């Protein structure tokens, strides 16, 4: 290698390009620099054609910088130039040239052991990684997949899951064509698949998914039943999509073979090239991990058992220390040893909790490209500002928050940000801003998608909701409730169905996904100024923040997320209603009270709310006051399942191991209210 530093890889170029702020002169100059460096290297070590293509990119970057601002067209053109560069590089088998020229290009086995998980950097693994990048970009079919292999592998895995789910629902639907929930499930699967395929520019899959969605339009709007011939069509569509997805996967293989055949590369390079393709076809899910740090995959059940055991150890340790301390003649040595044990236990617990955590950065990085493409497609100018990508979340949550975030960004760009001329006319900068940020707040992780677009039209939402019969025609809506409607199934204010978004699914998918993660989603909007979607998620699915209350002789845990406040009510504010229930006067309204002791038949519970404590909780759109004897404290607890049916029946979300090793029961406030209503005030 002639140069002192290793040349940038195609992947680094792609990443720099995506992350470059088109208004930031310094960033543009960096971009120019990195392309120039690549051109220099290509001139010396690869083909002049590659150098030319890279130089063209560098010149365009300079052009944008000198023009002062990056227009959509210019950035888009640069993106296309970069795609040309990638194709050229691939056609010239630059992979092999890179592998040869790179410092210490060792044998592929070494890479397999160490390089696989390494994030591409200036190491020996870099050249082969960059091959992986261009691998799926089959020059023959001109597809414009320039993202790294992990995206494709990820897509294939998810697509497989979605299609499996659709298949399963369709089988039931064939027998019970009126199952609206299943129709919605299938629709969502197709819709999500369409979105993902669109993101990766897999147009053929996107089209098939779109066509399949259209078949479901009729049963979704009105008829309610899925005709049997439609069912057959959908099965065919699912099969077709499976073939297409499999095609995407196998495309990952042939290109490397193609690039070998016209220009026989060195044996070592050929092996390096072939390897990623084999890897990913054998196990698509691996691709996801490939770009991360070196990792060991562990069976999830085993990890959970480890966490269980550590949780128990912490409790046992604290109980042992407690008993030892109660002993008046505690020897100094024992005290020291216990102290040490305590420290180790704590560290172990922290470590165990962190085992499942990973940062959001990989997810956020993908969004950069998504926003760029969406903006380009919709003819808008959008800049994505990302913050807090280091925020860590449970691995499962990180995986599952991906689709909802795509929906939210899609929504922000399609419905939020106005076209450039409309923005200018409204006195705003032509380039719309979308903030994507994550941060910790009170033991939860908050992810916000904020746009500075036109905001939501509350009146239009209400009108649409009345038209769709989603609300009682006689009730007046508050703004807050109206905004919540956009998250309801089957609701969309978009007048036309576009490729980018809009059929009314989307937002309810987001809401469901967030709720499945035990999170909450809120919408705030200012007409003309923009909209903010706030998603609040617990750090992990396994741990819940709760307030421990005493009810008679029993303890229950109320999830902090659903608590608004707690009050010790003045007797005058509690009114009995028809001798069947009581309400708490609160400002201008009344909060119905639920006596936990009476509901649960707890011995020794206090019937008089004014002598106990009222915990005011939010249950869906309503408020309810739970009457308990006293508050014992706050606690973070690990949720243990109690079984699906029982949970709903008894208004319980699960069990939790308390600090004394006993089991406490976690309340499901929404379920409790629903069940009390259904039971007619048992």
């Amino acid at each position, binding site marked *: 290698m002639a140069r002192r530093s290793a040349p940038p890889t195609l992947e680094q170029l792609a990443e720099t390009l995506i992350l470059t702020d088109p208004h930031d002169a310094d960033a543009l100059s960096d971009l120019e620099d990195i392309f120039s460096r690549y051109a220099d290297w290509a001139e010396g070590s690869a083909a002049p054609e590659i150098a030319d293509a890279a130089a063209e990119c560098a010149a365009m970057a300079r052009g944008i910088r000198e023009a002062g601002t990056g227009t959509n067209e210019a950035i888009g053109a640069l993106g296309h130039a970069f795609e040309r560069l990638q194709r050229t590089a691939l056609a010239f088998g630059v992979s092999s040239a890179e592998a040869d020229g790179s410092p210490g290009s060792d044998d592929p086995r070494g890479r397999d052991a160490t390089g696989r998980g390494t994030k591409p950097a200036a190491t020996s693994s870099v050249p082969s990684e960059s091959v992986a990048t261009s691998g799926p970009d089959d020059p023959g079919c001109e597809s414009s997949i320039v993202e790294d292999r992990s995206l494709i592998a990820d897509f294939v895995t998810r697509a497989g899951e979605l299609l499996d789910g659709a298949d399963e629902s369709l089988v039931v639907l064939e027998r019970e064509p009126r199952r609206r929930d299943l129709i919605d499930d299938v629709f969502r699967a197709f819709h999500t698949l369409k979105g993902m395929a669109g993101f990766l520019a897999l147009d053929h899959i996107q089209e098939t998914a779109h066509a399949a969605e259209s078949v479901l339009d009729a049963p979704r709007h009105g008829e309610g039943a899925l005709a049997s011939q439609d069912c057959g069509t959908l099965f065919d569509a699912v099969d077709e999509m499976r073939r297409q997805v499999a095609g995407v996967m196998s495309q990952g293989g042939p290109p490397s073979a193609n690039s070998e055949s016209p220009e026989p590369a060195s044996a070592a390079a050929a092996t390096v090239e072939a390897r990623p393709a084999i890897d990913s076809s054998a196990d698509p899910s691996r691709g996801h991990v490939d770009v991360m740090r070196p990792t060991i995959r562990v069976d999830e059940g085993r990890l959970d058992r480890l966490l269980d055991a550590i949780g128990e150890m912490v409790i046992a340790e604290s109980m042992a220390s407690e008993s030892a301390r109660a002993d008046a003649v505690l020897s100094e040595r024992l005290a020291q040893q216990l102290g040490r044990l305590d420290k180790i236990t704590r560290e172990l617990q922290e470590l165990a909790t962190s085992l499942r955590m990973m940062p959001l950065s990989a997810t956020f990085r993908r969004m950069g490209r998504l926003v760029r493409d969406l903006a380009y497609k919709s003819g808008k100018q959008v800049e994505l500002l990302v913050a807090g990508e280091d925020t860590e979340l449970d691995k499962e949550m990180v995986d599952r928050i991906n689709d909802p975030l795509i929906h939210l960004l899609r929504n922000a760009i399609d419905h939020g940000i106005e076209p450039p001329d409309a923005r200018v006319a409204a006195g705003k900068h032509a380039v719309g801003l979308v903030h994507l940020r994550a941060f910790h707040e009170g033991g939860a992780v908050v992810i916000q998608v904020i746009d500075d677009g036109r905001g939501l039209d509350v009146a239009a939402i209400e009108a649409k909701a009345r038209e769709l019969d989603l609300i009682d025609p006689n009730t007046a809506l508050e703004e807050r409730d109206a905004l919540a409607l956009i998250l309801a199934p089957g609701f969309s204010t978009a007048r036309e169905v576009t490729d980018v978004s809009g059929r009314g699914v989307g937002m309810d998918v987001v809401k469901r996904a967030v709720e499945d993660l035990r999170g909450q989603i809120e919408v705030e909007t200012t007409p003309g100024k923009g909209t903010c979607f706030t998603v609040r998620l617990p750090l992990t699915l396994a741990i819940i923040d709760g307030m421990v209350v005493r009810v008679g002789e*029993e303890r229950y845990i109320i999830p902090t997320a659903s608590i608004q406040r707690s009050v010790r009510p003045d007797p005058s504010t509690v009114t009995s209603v028809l001798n069947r229930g009581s309400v708490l006067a609160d400002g201008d309204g009344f909060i119905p009270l639920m006596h936990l002791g009476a509901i649960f*038949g707890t011995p020794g519970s206090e019937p008089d709310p004014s002598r106990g404590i009222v915990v005011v909780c939010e249950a869906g759109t309503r408020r309810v006051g739970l009457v308990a004897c006293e508050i014992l404290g706050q606690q973070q607890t690990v949720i*243990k*399942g*109690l079984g699906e049916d*029982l949970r709903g029946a*008894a208004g319980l979300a699960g069990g939790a191991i308390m600090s004394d090793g006993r*089991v406490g029961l976690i309340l499901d406030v929404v379920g409790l209210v629903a069940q009390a209503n259904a039971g007619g005030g048992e």
Partner: protein
Amino acid sequence: MAQQGGTVVAQTHKYLTFKLGPETYGLDILRVQEIIGMIPVTRVPKTPAFVRGVVNLRGRVIPVVDLRIKFETGEADDTELTCIVVVQLAGQSTVMGVVVDEVSEVLDISVDQIEDTPDFGAGVQTEFVRGIANVDGKVIMLLDIVRVLSGEELSVVERLASEA
């Protein structure tokens, strides 16, 4: 295999015997996972009375039933001898605890020591007693633990036990 033991001649099986009130019962040892001393049980509201609640078994939350209530052998207070027999309902994934007054011993009982459950006439449910064994003059009722709980009751317990 264990369930069909009764049909094979002269085969012996090990049974864990325990007391509920004055009566002695036996439980196929292969169903027993472990025996733990009485620990605090958390009552779960809206479950049948014989479901005592849930306990923490080394980080797992498992349901506990009280056969003394189910069999109406008289509700005894927990003593130092009271313990919880942890049994497997179906495979290892579904386990539940059974509160008994006292665990006695593990007995080898051969098939020819077991007699069919006598018919006590209508109104006396005996389907959960697989047979009655006579060992050294003691009468031991051999329980089919899965059948002890009727379908509905079992589903409550299984629901509690699933995901545990």
